[in-house]
């Protein structure tokens, strides 16, 4: 019941975004109906539309979860982008270095590499905050630059096959490949890169849910996020919590590397991320920092991403930038909704009125 009500506001925000988007399309001089038919129709077609939509949703689920966990813990992780780059590279590195290992060992090792690299890259700003009180927003942004430059350098000068004109690493061992779902789902061709990482994303969502609401660790994360002074009073070490939460967040972002390297390109491909880390912020916001919401929001953004191509190709005037506009509008309306809700609460709060003792010393 509560969850349905929670879902209502984001839904309204999305509808509003599509409405305003339609007006934009009208202004450009094209048919909104036709544009949306192309946009949604292609995303929901079988097998390509659905296959690609789920594939596009996979990294967004991971980054959405990453941002959501951090936000639940009171931290804004803008560094998922850097974390997933470092993690993807680490995944490929293990896949190259240990290429001779059997699959049962290599795949888990590569996954561990992705998770560990993301966790370390996430923990750094956590440590800086715990130790020196420097703000995680600044440090995660800075670490994004460092991450991109670092893996770019390693690819360019150490792991590129000589003569390869593309900025990409050598391929990983065959044993490190994870299966595409096309192999198991009838009617889904294997050329569609949707792979086991998608199921891993769903599993991760469930694990995040259990962690946050069913364990004492999640209790401490949420308590710290809700009121650090009260958490401290309850015997929670805030410093430790900041590092831990950022590490978990980074680990989730790092799992994008599993989808990208083990399930899709089988190598590290420089600049592969289509701003997954940043879109993850919008996904978490739209999904109300709840794993189920994150899945739904990631699917929505994936639909937009998938549908952009045919819109670009088959309309007269509208370009696929309409997708960006729609994304931006969704974010805008979600943010506006947050404001609306807050002012709503203020009025209600005034209802408890005189007393609702924000003012101490009152009877």
């Amino acid at each position, binding site marked *: 019941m509560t969850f349905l009500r929670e879902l209502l506001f984001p839904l309204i925000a999305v509808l509003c975004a599509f409405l305003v988007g339609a007006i934009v399309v009208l202004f450009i001089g094209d048919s909104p109906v036709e544009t949306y038919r192309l946009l949604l129709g292609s995303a929901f077609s079988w097998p390509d539309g659905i296959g690609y939509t789920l594939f596009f949703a996979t990294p967004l689920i991971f980054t959405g979860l990453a941002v959501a966990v951090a936000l639940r813990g009171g931290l804004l992780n803008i560094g998922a982008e850097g974390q997933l780059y470092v993690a993807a590279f680490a995944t490929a590195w293990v896949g190259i270095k240990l290429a001779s290992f059997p699959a049962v060992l290599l795949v888990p090792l590569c996954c561990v590499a992705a998770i560990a690299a993301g966790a370390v890259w996430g923990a750094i700003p956590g440590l800086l905050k715990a130790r020196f009180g420097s703000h995680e927003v600044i440090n995660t942004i800075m670490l994004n630059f460092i991450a991109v430059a670092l893996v770019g350098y390693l690819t360019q000068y150490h792991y590129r096959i000589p003569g390869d004109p593309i900025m990409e690493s050598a391929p990983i061992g065959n044993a490190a490949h994870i299966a595409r779902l096309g192999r198991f789902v009838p009617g889904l061709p294997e050329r569609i890169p949707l792979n086991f990482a998608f199921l891993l994303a769903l599993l991760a969502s469930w694990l995040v849910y259990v962690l946050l609401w*069913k*364990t*004492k*660790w999640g*209790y*401490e994360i*949420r*308590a710290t996020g*809700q*009121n650090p*002074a*009260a*958490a*401290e*009073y*309850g*015997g*929670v*070490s805030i410093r430790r919590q900041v590092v831990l939460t950022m590490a978990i967040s980074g680990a989730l972002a790092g799992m994008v590397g599993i989808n990208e390297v083990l399930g899709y390109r089988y190598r590290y491909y420089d600049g592969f991320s289509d701003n997954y880390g940043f879109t993850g912020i919008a996904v978490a916001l739209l999904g109300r920092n709840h794993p189920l919401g994150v899945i739904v929001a990631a699917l929505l953004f994936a639909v937009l991403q998938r549908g952009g191509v045919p819109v670009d190709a088959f309309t007269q005037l509208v370009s696929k930038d309409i997708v960006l506009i729609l994304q931006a509008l969704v974010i805008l309306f979600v943010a506006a909704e947050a404001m609306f809700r807050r002012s709503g609460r203020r*009025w*209600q709060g*005034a*209802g*408890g*009125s*005189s*007393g*609702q*003792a*924000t*003012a*101490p*010393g*009152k*009877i």
Partner: protein
Amino acid sequence: MTLELRGITKRFGAVLANDHLDITIPSGTIHAIVGENGAGKSTAMRIAYGFYTADSGDILVDGQVREIRAPRDAIALGIGMVHQHFMLVRPMTVTENIVLGAEPGSAVSLDLRKAAASIRALSEEFKLAVDPDATIENLSVGQQQRVELLKALYRRAGLLILDEPTAVLTPQEVDEFFGILRRMRDQGKTVIIITHKLSEVLAISDDVTVMRDGRVVGNVKTSDTTAAQLARLMVGREVLLRVEKPPARPGPIVLSVKDLSIGGHDGARRLEQVSFDVRGGEIVGVAGVEGNGQTELIEALAGLLPESRVSGSISFSGRDIRPLDARHRREAGIAHVPEDRHRRGLLLEFSLAENVILGVHYRAPAVRGMGAVLLNRPGIQQRVDLVIREFDVRPPDPSLPARALSGGNQQKLIIGREFELPPILLLISQPTRGVDIGAIEFIHRKIVAMRDAGCAVLLVSAELEEVTALADRLLVMHNGHIAGEVDPARATHEQIGMLMTGGHAPSGVEGHS
């Protein structure tokens, strides 16, 4: 200047905050409005000042119906309001603060000298002794309050609404403050004072309006009423104003503090060489104006201050607990009811069930299974049911967010959580701040019951009445020191007040610095 509220009704969502209020405040009187939390007294005054607009009803100023849609309308009509939390810009001077929003001079230039002169004149007229050129942050709390008064007077207010004005003052400052109010009344101003301290109502007001559940339940001349009658009107039933407690039977020493000093972030000392003991089965009270080191004392004992700020020794049941953090001190049997329940004591967005395990959330019965990682729903349910039942938390729904509870019920939840540890030592700060009279009575009984069960209690309260009524021994703090220890049954408020201000005689109109 007379003010009349006629049939004022205000609804917030499902809550009827003001239900056909009729209040008449004659010119040149001091009028007290009393009532419990949520009785609607602040709402009514905010309507009069234009913060809210009433759903229906009229506001009459000097007999004429007036539209007051925003505070500036109220100010234009000569209504001033002094809030409980001062609205002053601390690095600026008194004059700058007072003219803020009504700057004299032309559009571009600012004539502060003229303003300072008229502020000085006002200050002298009402004997406020405020220097217009002083910087706010160098003023005492009492002086800051007088700046707020000046602000209203400068805007030619004929009627002043004061919201809980004495909450931050020492007994001596309260006396001075009342002197100022009487002078203002004698010069024709009308004063409305919102308060909950019945003794002050009796001391200062001419008339009293009692509110309950959004309605006016009594309108009496102060000279015709008593504290007991007012309390009965406020609560709607007979209330025990005195705490009944048998003599204490102190046991062995539980807490022994020696030479405890605490540094502030700015390097200044917050606590200086404080030493005292608390025995099992006794309540040791700590009186003092807020901000004289009590907060730091309690936080240091609870393990919430960084080790680097604390020096001296804290021994609990004969054991040095300085190395223990907050979690381990609670495990050892030290419960802590914090002074600010919203800042420290509660996770407002969390459910009551989740709040009731704060501090014990990592051990049985709150967790179960391998490694004690998973939260244990039945165990938590049992605990929250117990606390709700034993401590009469209302509404008794464990799934509600703590935010949804009234101040008194929030406090009962915290007290229940801490009392059910159960503690060997109880640190309890401002236990009844913002709590209804009915709940105060309940909480006081529970504290005494805790003591009688052998618990050592260290009680900090800014309410002198409370701390003298509950404590078996009373320490008075001033400026980070223990200024003295008195027998609460014998010492007068004047004697305690003297210690609270550092042992000096009441310091005249300038207050203390």
